């Protein structure tokens, strides 16, 4: 008992003060990509060719990058001869609409809060059922880590529950394999309405590295309607936490402000 108490004192209080303060991330962390089209050569397509998932396209001569497909792998950065593409340190990058994940045009639209009515329902208590539908355990692990003392998700009233019947929504990871399609749909149907669906990670948004495999369905919205997209491969836990808190209207200000 004394040993346990001594350990308790030594291990200390480790919960981060997010959202009031942001812990430092690795200087090599690959956050929200930054595009500088002014540096692009007129006929250059190196980054487009290098991207493993087809996340980068040129539309009207302008570079567009789909965060929903991006694996944050830096293959494009290494391929670009002009330094026109790079990763910033911004970890806040989830969106409510699929098209908002395409960057390079209008300013990035970060998650908007739920409407007032839904917010009154879920804002102070959100119970989620997690469904892994072909996830590689990367996204699962960094969702699960929100339950540790470091992030202490419970203090925001957000909790992962064991049954869809007890849940207000689903948090889906993985590209939705054909072998999980029915299970995902049944789990969704078992959640009482109104309900939310949160797609976490490149797989759940677009199929990720497995995009267009006949064995997968290219993401959750092929099977269930999605309310929140959290990009990354896997997303940093802070990216997921920030997305959840913004969805619930617990953080109001815009990124960068």
């Amino acid at each position, binding site marked *: 008992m004394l040993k346990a108490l001594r*350990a*308790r004192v030594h291990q200390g209080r480790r919960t981060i003060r997010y959202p009031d303060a942001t812990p430092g991330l*690795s200087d090599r962390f*690959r956050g929200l990509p930054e595009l500088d089209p002014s540096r692009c050569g007129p006929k250059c397509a190196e980054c487009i060719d290098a991207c493993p998932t087809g996340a980068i396209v040129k539309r009207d001569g302008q570079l567009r990058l789909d965060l929903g497909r991006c694996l944050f792998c830096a293959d494009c950065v290494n391929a670009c001869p002009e330094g026109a593409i790079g990763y910033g340190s911004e970890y806040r990058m989830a969106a409510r609409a699929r098209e908002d994940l395409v960057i390079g045009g209008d300013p990035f639209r970060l998650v908007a809060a739920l409407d007032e009515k839904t917010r009154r329902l879920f804002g102070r208590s959100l119970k989620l059922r997690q469904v892994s539908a072909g996830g590689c355990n990367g996204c699962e692990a960094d*969702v699960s880590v929100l339950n540790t*003392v*470091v992030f202490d998700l419970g203090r925001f009233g957000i909790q992962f529950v064991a049954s869809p019947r007890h849940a207000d929504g689903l948090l889906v990871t993985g590209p939705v394999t054909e072998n999980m399609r029915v299970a995902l749909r049944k*789990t969704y149907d078992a959640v009482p309405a109104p309900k939310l669906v949160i797609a976490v990670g490149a797989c759940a948004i677009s199929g990720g590295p497995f995009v267009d495999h006949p*064995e997968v369905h290219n993401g959750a919205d092929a099977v269930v309607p999605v309310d929140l997209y959290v990009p990354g491969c896997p997303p940093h836990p802070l990216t997921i936490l920030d997305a959840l808190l913004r969805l619930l209207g617990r953080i109001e200000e815009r990124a960068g402000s």
Partner: protein
Amino acid sequence: MGSGASLVLRNSQPARAGDVPVLDVAAFTAEVQGRVEAGGRVVALFGHPLGADSARLVAVLGDDHAGVMALTATDVRGSYPALTPRCPQAHRFECEVAEQCGVEPVGHPWLKPVRGVEPSAGAPFFEVTGDEVHEVAVGPVHAGIIEPGHFRFQCHGETVMHLEIALGYQHRGVERALVGGPSKRTIHYVETLAGDTSVGHATAHCQAVEALAGCRVPARAEVLRGVALELERLANHTGDLGALAGDVGYLPTASYCGRIRGDFLNMTALLCGSRFGRGMVRPGGVGFDADPTRAAELLARLEKAVVDVGEAAQLLWDEPSVQARFEEVGALLPETCEALGLVGVAARASALPRDVRDAFPSGIFRFAHIPVSTWHTGDVFARAYVRWLEIQRSAAFVRERLTVLPDGAVRVPVGPLAADGMVVSLVEGWRGEICHVARTDGEGRFAHYKVVDPSFHNWMGLAMALRDQQISDFPLCNKSFNLSYCGHDL
């Protein structure tokens, strides 16, 4: 080399595909069984379809003492006499061959699809009947934040007589997609075979590619790969100790280890920007160097985390209520592990000294040896305790390697792969032996790519560990193995 019935290779030693002897079925069976009876292991056994109902079977048989693997092959059409009745460790492999190639292993005692989840896949569950016998079905969607799988228990009261594990829900078609590569997606497929083992699988893949291309990886890169691999082990073993504590309701260690696991993941992120080591291991070397400041920072963080995890683990061993729940639960005899061909922590917890880093060392492990950690009781305690032993040894390895980082480049270009080549690459991932077998075609593209995650060997071990146990001990036993679903389903 070898008896003529096999081609004998070392870990990541390139060969010509044509040098693997193709025997008749009887000679093949005799060769596999002979080597297994002489103490060998089935590292991999797979089929390469030759037509609608014919296939070339290739067996990779490991000899832990000699540190070599014997490759032998045969062509079968329609059916062949199953190896499993005399060689139980071939069980899941032969099911997989049947599913992928449409050839039937005749006399296989339990032929079921490995990844087919529909009831129409024609695979009824084994059923126990009788008074007071009942069945419990769990999954594929589970209560926690874990991957999907289906567990079917045959129980008498609280006692589990039989557990059947049905997987395949995570099947993404990765092996199929790897054929025709290397392509720009290849390394990303490999890093997500089992996303918690990105470094392990990426290293296995890169070793295979480098062997086929005749590429020599710089010493500095070999060390950094080793460091990343051991950081992956440290993070996962620490997480597992915490999860085991959580499963028996001992919250101090559960909370501390949950946090310390993150500290190790963040050390990997310090190296390469990703908590899971994505982007770290690349063909020809590593994607990121560790400058002296970074190495010093890593060392400083390592020291803190090692003290913290040591204290958290010691609480477990000192707490009688924890020990009462760990000891003599889910015990596996060494004979069972041997018969089933288990690898990794599960095998070492049953006194089998199986460790690729020791028996088939590659990269930095040829020069810096990590002692094999074993325990002899085979129960949940042993699987927890082996993890703790390995945490200490991995920490010592990282500490030592980072202090004497060799100079030089961290990545060199990799040329084209040899045509008609064959290679078997092994890495000791944190769960156990990772095996990648690559065979190239006439143009040096992958004609076949076989991945064997340690979980493929070990799921059967979990099923056996549950026999005669309380059904309420399933979560604890499951966590003590902590196997990969996606690594199995591919």
